[in-house]
């Protein structure tokens, strides 16, 4: 059957549609052909697939062929069964007849003969030629058609249809199409069954020796082809898949050594998408096919069907897998294949697949996931092609033009060298080429990396090519190789061309490059090849292998090589990006950048490098970043992108220290410093967050009082390898409690030199608002360059247990307390001090958990108070309570190094500088002050309402202002009240009125101070009208001096005086005041109250001080002897007073003496009276003031009645009657009126309660 292969191929190539045969019995076809062919291709054909499921096929092409056509006539029966798929799928019998007899006698037997073959699906189209207006003819046609139906249609199947030429029935065409479809479907089903049966039979013999794959293939592909022709592509694909599986099974069957193929010219070009490249008959081998061609053929058939199914993405993914697996198969046969056949094939296969799938793919054709996968596969195909292409380039000597990047290194260094059976030998007469290669090798200089980075270049070779090539040479045995590398002379073949110098030369790649001399090759086959020779040899071999002119062109020169290299890189990168494999894409962007970099397209290179660096930096892959970043920096430097360059330098510095040598890191730093100190065109702030990190110092945050400045210590970690000078540095403080307030910059004034590693920086902090603050960011300047860091140190505080979180909540670094009282000033003594004497006024200065170091107290005395400036001011430690020192348990003042001694201070311009030892302890400041009161103290006569000196009179104020704090920023102001008083309060009373007119005047002294007063002497200077009895020196009767009056106690002194008439002297005023003089001394403690006045000479408290003199004015009144009138208050009505109820107030005025003026006459005297009343409480009905007549005789009485109305309830003062014209001394109140009367509330009104009569 295998002999039918060529025929099968030609049938396949010439057969493209389903064939429908037309049996034209009555020569009608030329008439109706047009109408029939207009129906093609069939829309919406319904066919059954292999599993007998209906499948709708859009656009089924078909062809009508007359049975008399030569194509259908010349076939052998055997062919027919094998290539049954090309036989007609339906037979349409065209007949016409207008006579029943003719039909019965001629047409019917003929038709019977035609349709007797059961194999064919047929139906009859009766064509009526009867014109529409000819009823006779029409009737006849109907009769004939009816007869036809009776004879040929059955109940099961309608086999006849009628076409009216002159009046076509619109239903006819549908009817026709339906019948054709039915025929095709039935034929197809039958043929599928046939093929399945045949295939099954063959499959059963698979493991028999007679098994022939070619036969199986022809059957299987026939079936597949039939499906394809019927547009059942899915089924066709399935057949090819099965065929492939079956083939792989047979090809891998052990024991059958077959020719692999691939040895022919042009085989290096993949035919995986071109099924017709090579005839199948050419690749037959024994009972099967050659693997090399046949697998590609099968894939091409599958790909064709997949493209027809609009699944280019599947072609790509299947293709990629195919290339990988086929490459493996090529590797197995590599030793037999031409040199680098595998690589070349993979390149051409990838390129073909990329081209075909990309051109067949339209965006949006597939679901997003599928699309993503498609682009990924495209990327993979590009990458695979890229790798193999690089390998070829490397073999012909372009290795130095391949970027030694991690991706290339990883791809190539793990990809084994080609393994030909024998490494291609150097062709004869290639010396000039070798010379050229040598020159190329010599000329190439390793590109120096920026910053003088010296690094071992990444390898591009799995093993040294020189060694590998020489090892695989036919004439060198393994023993030779060991000689080659061990440096020992070879012992085997006695050929001494490998001189020691030559041996050493090849022992190192770099040495061989530099030392190989062009004149040294002599073509000796046993001499190890030099690198240039290897390149030339490989190039020649590749020229034989590669048949694709385009590919060869790409390898012909460095420029072409780079162009292709760039194309492939770009293709891979683009596709990876479209597939969202950003890492793969970006890595390849880096390759493109490297090429641009090499060609000095720095702009493009920098753009791409930035992408690469951003990815690596973003994900923290520092090893990879360290490879690319110097290149980016170099591009940026050349492009004068200072900002970018600086940022790159900073990034380089912040990479792991182990990635660069110290020298290199110093180079980075020097670049930063150089730029920072140069004139930058567009100065930009530089982010050094990764390089300079900072944190607060460990321990609690700095706590400050409101308004206080402070110093903040910040720990800075410098990642610079050397010291670096910062011209300025600012720390941003951010308040944690308020959102509205932005960060405040705290600037360090002087330049700072940062050492590598940890530095402690101290910045002075101006007063801050209350709240807690965290470190925000760090800004500063290096030269002209402003930098900024906002990252907190990872290595700083010990609480960085969470390695992942870089943005950990920061600890407060500063806490500014809310305003509180920091100090208190108070008067030390609350009791009164002596007036008009210099007294120590104590001011307690009490710091409240706050140091008063350097505090200054401003003292401003109020009116009536002055500082005795002659005296020093004293300060001493304040003892809380007198008993404190008695507690022996407490060690005396061990908390303070200061002695409790009194220290003198001096006042300057109203200011006192407090000594430092008082800064943390409560101290008392003693200020000598003198309160001045110009008035004389007044005594009070007995019996009168006490008119003691008001306390307010003795109050004086001292305005104090304390400036304190670290920089005198805090102020505390307070006005302290100090109470001054006279030592005594004096009252007098007449103790006894003797019959001889002597009056015993008792003077009572009330001590007003908390001190013991000693009266040493007292005398009274009497006013006019009074005189001392006895000696008259004004001294008291009894002399018990010194009289000691203790604190708050009273003492009395008796004076004996008498009333005398003092003749009025002309022009002299009578002295109206008596003055009491008291000489006394005071002994008191300034800690308690009044004390001895401050004297200039401090002679000590024990010494007697000069007695003081106290003078008090007394007013003595002559006794009232003769009242003239008596005013008596008459009782009020007994029913009491009520608000709103009129009441009559009555006073009785009685004349006690005869009026001195005119005693004889009976005249009445007019007496002026006046009612004093509080108008808020009383309403007076009538006159308040008036004259009333009273007889001038003694005993005359008059009653004055005033009608009053109480206005308020309660105890109120009643109206008082006064006689303004009469001296008070001459009025006797008898009986005296009440001080208060009770006024009841108004009576309740009962008017609402009484029922109406």
């Amino acid at each position, binding site marked *: 059957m295998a002999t039918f292969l060529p025929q099968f191929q030609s049938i396949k190539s010439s057969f493209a549609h389903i064939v429908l045969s037309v049996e034209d019995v009555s020569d009608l076809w030329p008439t109706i052909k047009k109408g029939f062919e207009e129906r093609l291709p069939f829309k919406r054909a319904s066919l059954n697939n292999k599993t007998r499921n209906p499948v709708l096929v859009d656009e089924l092409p078909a062809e009508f062929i007359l049975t008399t056509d030569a194509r259908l006539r010349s076939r052998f029966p055997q062919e027919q069964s094998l290539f049954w798929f090309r036989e007609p799928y339906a037979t349409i019998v065209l007949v016409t007849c207008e006579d029943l007899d003719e039909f019965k006698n001629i047409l019917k037997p003929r038709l019977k003969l035609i349709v007797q073959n059961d194999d064919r699906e047929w139906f009859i189209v009766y064509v009526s030629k009867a014109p529409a207006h000819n009823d006779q003819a029409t009737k006849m046609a109907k009769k004939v058609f009816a007869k036809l139906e009776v004879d040929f249609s059955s109940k099961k199947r309608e086999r006849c249809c009628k076409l009216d030429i002159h009046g076509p029935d619109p239903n006819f065409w549908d009817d026709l199409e339906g019948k054709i479809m039915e025929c095709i479907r039935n034929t197809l089903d039958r043929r599928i069954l046939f093929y399945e049966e045949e295939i099954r039979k063959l499959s059963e013999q698979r493991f028999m020796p007679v098994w022939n794959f070619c036969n199986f293939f022809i059957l299987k592909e026939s079936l597949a082809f039939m499906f394809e022709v019927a547009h059942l592509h899915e089924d066709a694909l399935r057949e090819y898949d099965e065929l492939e599986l079956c083939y792989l099974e047979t090809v891998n069957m052990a024991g059958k050594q077959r020719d692999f193929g691939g040895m022919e010219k042009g085989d290096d070009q993949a035919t995986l998408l071109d099924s017709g490249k090579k005839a199948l008959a050419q690749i037959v081998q024994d009972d099967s096919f050659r693997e090399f061609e046949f697998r590609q053929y099968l894939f091409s058939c599958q790909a064709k069907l997949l493209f027809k199914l609009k699944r280019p993405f599947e072609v790509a993914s299947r293709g990629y897998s195919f290339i990988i697996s086929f490459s493996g198969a090529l590797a197995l046969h590599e030793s037999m294949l031409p040199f680098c056949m595998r690589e070349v094939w993979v390149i051409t296969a990838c390129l073909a697949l990329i081209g075909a799938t990309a051109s067949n793919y339209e965006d949006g054709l597939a679901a997003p996931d599928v699309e993503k996968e498609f682009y990924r596969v495209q990327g993979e195909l590009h990458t695979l092609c890229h790798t193999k292409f690089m390998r070829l380039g490397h073999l012909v000597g372009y290795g130095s033009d391949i970027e030694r990047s*991690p991706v290339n*290194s990883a791809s190539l260094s*793990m990809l084994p060298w080609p393994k030909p059976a024998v490494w291609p030998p150097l062709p004869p007469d290639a010396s000039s080429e070798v010379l050229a290669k040598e020159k190329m090798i010599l000329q190439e200089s390793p590109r120096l990396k920026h910053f003088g980075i010296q690094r*071992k270049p990444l390898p591009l070779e799995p093993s040294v090519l020189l060694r590998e090539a020489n090892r695989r040479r036919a004439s060198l045995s393994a023993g030779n190789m060991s000689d080659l590398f061990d440096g020992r002379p070879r012992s085997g073949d006695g050929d001494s061309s490998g001189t020691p110098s030559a041996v050493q030369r090849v022992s190192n790649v770099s040495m061989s490059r530099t030392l190989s001399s062009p004149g040294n090759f002599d073509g000796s086959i046993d001499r190890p090849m030099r690198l240039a020779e290897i390149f030339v040899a490989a190039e020649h071999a590749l020229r034989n292998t590669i048949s694709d002119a385009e590919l060869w062109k790409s390898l012909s020169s460095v420029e072409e090589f780079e162009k292709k290299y760039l194309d492939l890189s770009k293709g891979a990168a683009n596709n990876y990006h479209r597939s969202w494999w950003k890492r793969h894409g970006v890595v390849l962007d880096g390759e493109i950048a490297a090429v641009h970099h090499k060609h000095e397209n720095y702009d493009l290179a920098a753009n791409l490098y930035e992408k690469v660096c951003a990815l690596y930096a973003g994900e923290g892959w520092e090893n990879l970043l360290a490879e690319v970043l110097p290149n980016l920096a170099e591009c940026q430097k050349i492009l004068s992108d200072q900002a970018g360059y600086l940022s790159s330098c900073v990034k380089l510095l912040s990479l792991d220290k182990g990635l660069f040598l110290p020298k290199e890191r110093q180079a980075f730093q020097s670049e930063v410093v150089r730029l920072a100190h140069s004139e930058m065109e567009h100065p930009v702030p530089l982010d050094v967050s990764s390089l300079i990190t900072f944190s607060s110092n460990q321990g609690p945050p700095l706590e400050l009082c409101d308004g206080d400045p402070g110093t903040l210590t910040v720990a800075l970690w410098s990642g610079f390898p050397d010291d670096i000078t910062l011209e300025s540095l600012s720390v941003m403080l951010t308040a944690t409690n308020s959102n509205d307030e932005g960060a405040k910059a705290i600037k360090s004034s002087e330049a700072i030199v940062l050492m590598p590693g940890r530095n402690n920086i101290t910045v002075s902090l101006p007063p801050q608002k209350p709240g807690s603050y965290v470190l925000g960011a760090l800004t500063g300047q290096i030269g002209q360059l402003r930098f900024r860091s906002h990252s907190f140190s990872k290595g700083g505080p010990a609480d960085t247990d969470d390695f*992942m979180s870089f943005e950990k909540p920061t600890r407060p670094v500063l806490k500014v307390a809310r305003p509180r009282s920091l100090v208190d000033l108070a008067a030390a003594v609350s009791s009164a001090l002596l007036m008009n004497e210099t007294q120590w006024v104590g001011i307690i200065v009490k710091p409240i958990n706050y140091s008063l170091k350097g505090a200054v107290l401003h003292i401003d005395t109020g009116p009536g108070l002055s500082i005795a400036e002659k005296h020093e001011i004293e300060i001493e430690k304040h003892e809380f309570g007198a008993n404190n020192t008695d507690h022996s348990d407490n060690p005396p003042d061990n908390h303070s190094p200061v002695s409790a001694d009194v220290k003198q201070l001096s006042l300057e311009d109203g200011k006192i500088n407090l000594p430092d030892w008082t800064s943390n302890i409560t101290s008392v400041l003693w200020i000598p002050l003198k309160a001045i009161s110009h008035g004389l103290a007044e005594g009070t006569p007995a019996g009168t309402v006490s008119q003691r000196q008001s306390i307010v009179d003795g109050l004086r104020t001292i305005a104090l202002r304390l400036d304190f704090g670290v920089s005198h920023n805090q102020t505390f102001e307070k006005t302290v009240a100090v109470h001054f008083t006279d030592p005594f309060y004096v009252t007098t009373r007449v103790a006894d009125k003797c019959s001889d007119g002597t009056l015993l005047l008792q003077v009572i002294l009330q001590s007003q101070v908390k001190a013991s007063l000693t009266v040493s002497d007292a005398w009274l200077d009497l006013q006019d009208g009074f005189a001392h009895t006895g000696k008259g020196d004004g001294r008291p009767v009894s002399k018990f001096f010194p009289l000691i009056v203790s604190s708050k106690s009273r003492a009395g002194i008796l004076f004996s005086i008498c009333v005398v008439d003092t003749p009025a002297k002309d022009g002299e005023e009578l002295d109206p005041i008596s003055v009491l003089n008291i000489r006394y001394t005071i002994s008191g403690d300034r800690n308690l109250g009044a004390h001895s006045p401050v004297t200039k000479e401090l002679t000590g408290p024990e010494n007697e001080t000069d007695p003081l003199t106290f003078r008090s004015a007394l007013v003595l009144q002559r006794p009232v002897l003769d009242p003239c009138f008596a005013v008596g208050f008459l009782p009020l009505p007994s029913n009491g007073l009520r608000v709103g109820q009129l009441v009559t107030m009555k006073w009785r005025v009685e004349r006690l003496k005869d009026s001195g003026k005119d005693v004889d006459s009976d005249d009445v005297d007019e007496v002026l009276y006046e009612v004093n009343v509080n108008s808020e409480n009383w309403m007076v009905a009538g006159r308040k003031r008036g004259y009333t007549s009273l007889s001038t005789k003694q005993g005359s009485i008059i009653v004055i009645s005033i009608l009053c109305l109480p206005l308020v309830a309660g105890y109120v003062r009643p109206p008082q009657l006064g006689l303004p014209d009469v001296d008070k001394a001459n009025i006797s109140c008898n009986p005296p009126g009440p001080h208060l009367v009770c006024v009841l509330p108004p009576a309740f009104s009962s008017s609402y309660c009484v029922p109406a009569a």
Partner: protein
Amino acid sequence: MASTACFMIVSKNDIPIYEAEVGTVPKKEDAAHQHQFILHAALDIVQDTAWNTSAMFLKSIDRFNDLVVSVYVTAGHILSFVMSD
């Protein structure tokens, strides 16, 4: 037989946080780059694969010539890569 093996832990932000060469092949200077490169590229595959399976151990998700990359994905998306030949 000498073997190459590299173990690496990558945080959920794709940041490498631990790396160890655990193979018996003596460490080469350039191997670090290569291994990092391969594992970094494998992240692309992990990002596609990890969310499409309930398995935490993704066996041989990537192959680079002779090196096979496997990854264990924790619930918190911490990746533990093992690369070996």
